[in-house]
């Protein structure tokens, strides 16, 4: 099943042309890895999918993005963001308790009952493999957690809203290898129920977890294909060069 269809997408930030004529389809319940050097437009692409780019005053966009058949531009942005969750590069807990962090998205969608919030919090924390580590200190500040725990907290926070898509923006860039492995493991389990789009600077990570891989360079989509194909027989020479570490 196709989750996203991107048609002739162009994005500008002020005078900067940040995304040029991108066309692609993203399948549901798979992991799509997005790789490419810094400033290649990966993050812009990701933030476009849940309309976070619009928080920037200079943002302009042309083209269409269909999400489950519907143009996201016609949808209510808050609804888009509830259905398409996002985990940022740095663990970004909100300055409140662990419980409140996970309950936040549920609360703002109008669930006032503390009991229902608690159920959602436990479920989300279990899915992010964090419940056992924090179940006794849900009321302490989220900033007391370690970096890896904070990142899993952010994943739990996203899951609590019950999205159908999760966007990961270099979620492991600040984590040690063991924490990274835990996050990757979580992603592989999550893809059974969610569509996952993973932006990563770590080419090996893309190879490890991605079903498909897309390669961006200078604001353009160079190639998208099955991960195996991209890493063994890419069509474009630039993809090959990047994967082999010849540049970037």
């Amino acid at each position, binding site marked *: 099943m196709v989750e996203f269809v991107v048609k002739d997408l162009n994005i500008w930030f002020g005078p900067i042309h940040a995304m040029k004529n991108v066309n692609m389809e993203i399948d549901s319940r798979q992991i799509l890895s997005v790789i490419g050097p810094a400033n290649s437009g990966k993050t812009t692409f990701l933030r476009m999918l849940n309309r976070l780019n619009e928080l920037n*005053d200079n943002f302009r966009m042309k083209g269409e993005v269909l999400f489950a058949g519907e143009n996201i531009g016609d949808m209510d942005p808050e609804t888009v*963001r509830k259905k398409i969750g996002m985990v940022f590069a740095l663990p970004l807990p*909100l300055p409140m308790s662990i419980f409140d962090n996970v309950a*936040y998205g549920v609360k703002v969608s109008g669930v006032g009952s503390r009991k229902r919030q608690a159920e959602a919090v436990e479920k989300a924390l279990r899915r992010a493999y964090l419940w056992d580590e924090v179940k006794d200190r849900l009321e302490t500040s989220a900033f007391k957690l370690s970096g890896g725990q904070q990142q899993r907290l952010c994943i739990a926070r996203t899951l609590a809203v019950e999205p159908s898509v999760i966007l990961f923006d270099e979620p492991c860039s600040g984590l040690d290898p063991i924490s990274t492995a835990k996050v990757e493991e979580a992603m592989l389990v999550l893809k059974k129920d969610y569509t996952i789009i993973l932006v990563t600077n770590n080419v090996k990570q893309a190879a490890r977890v991605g079903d498909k891989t897309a390669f961006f360079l200078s604001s353009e989509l160079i190639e998208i294909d099955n991960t195996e194909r991209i890493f063994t027989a890419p069509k474009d020479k630039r993809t090959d060069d990047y994967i082999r570490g010849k540049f970037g």
Partner: protein
Amino acid sequence: MKDNPVSDCTVSAVPKLRKRARDPVLMQKVAFALLFLATLLIIVPVGLIIVVIVQKGLPGISWQFLTDIPRQGMRSGGIFPAILGTVYLVGGAIIFALPIGLLSAIYLSEYARGNFLTRLIKLAIVNLAGVPSVVYGLFGLALFVTFFKFGASILSGALTLGIMILPIIITASLEALESVPHSFREASRSLGASKWQTIRYVVLPNSISGIITGTILGLGRAAGETAPILFTVAAFYLPQLPGSIFDQVMALPYHLYVISTQVPNVDEKIRYGTALVLLTMVLFMNLAAVVIRCRFRRKKKW
């Protein structure tokens, strides 16, 4: 080597450098002494003001002084109407200025784009802060007393003071709101929270200490000003308590001015006692601001 102009240059520069090389230690000491002395000098006037006023005013302070009305042409009795008047005026100013100041700060920080209107508003705030207080008094007289026909009343005075402290509240609130990291807003929005929910649940709880601090500092300013209330509310001598917001009241700063310069033969105890009460009120407000800031800073979670 001698032919090389660069090395020549260095050679001639060396003696100068050496001469200076001895100085830095001394210079350092001199500079330190100067800077320290200049800083030390700040305590002197503050200390003197407090010592003199406490010394001369404390004997005048009694329960009767604080709770009685002025008697015998303000030469004896208490200053209760003036204390109450100042409390009313400060309270009225805050009721008027805090909502407007806070809401406009939220607008400027969260909603406004960098367009002409925003620049105009910011310019207006700067100008509002720069207007001398006596001009506020005249403005209040023209607008509230005369044009709106509120008369010389608590309402006119409180509104005038409110306008005067608006820029203080807006600037402090704006600073507090903008000190909340942008990433928190982004995280909140990414979870499907609307702009207002983000402000309500994330931005305001993390900037409330700065907002309260700024507001209290504004209040301290409002409590001490004479000029804005001179034409709009302050009564020369009114030994009774106000019945409504359209009544005149006495106020501490103006009362102090009156008994110090306009009424002959007022006992020094009464004058300095009044000053001491005013000073204590303002100091307490500033102290409250400091305490609130410290408490919230300890609670801050990032």
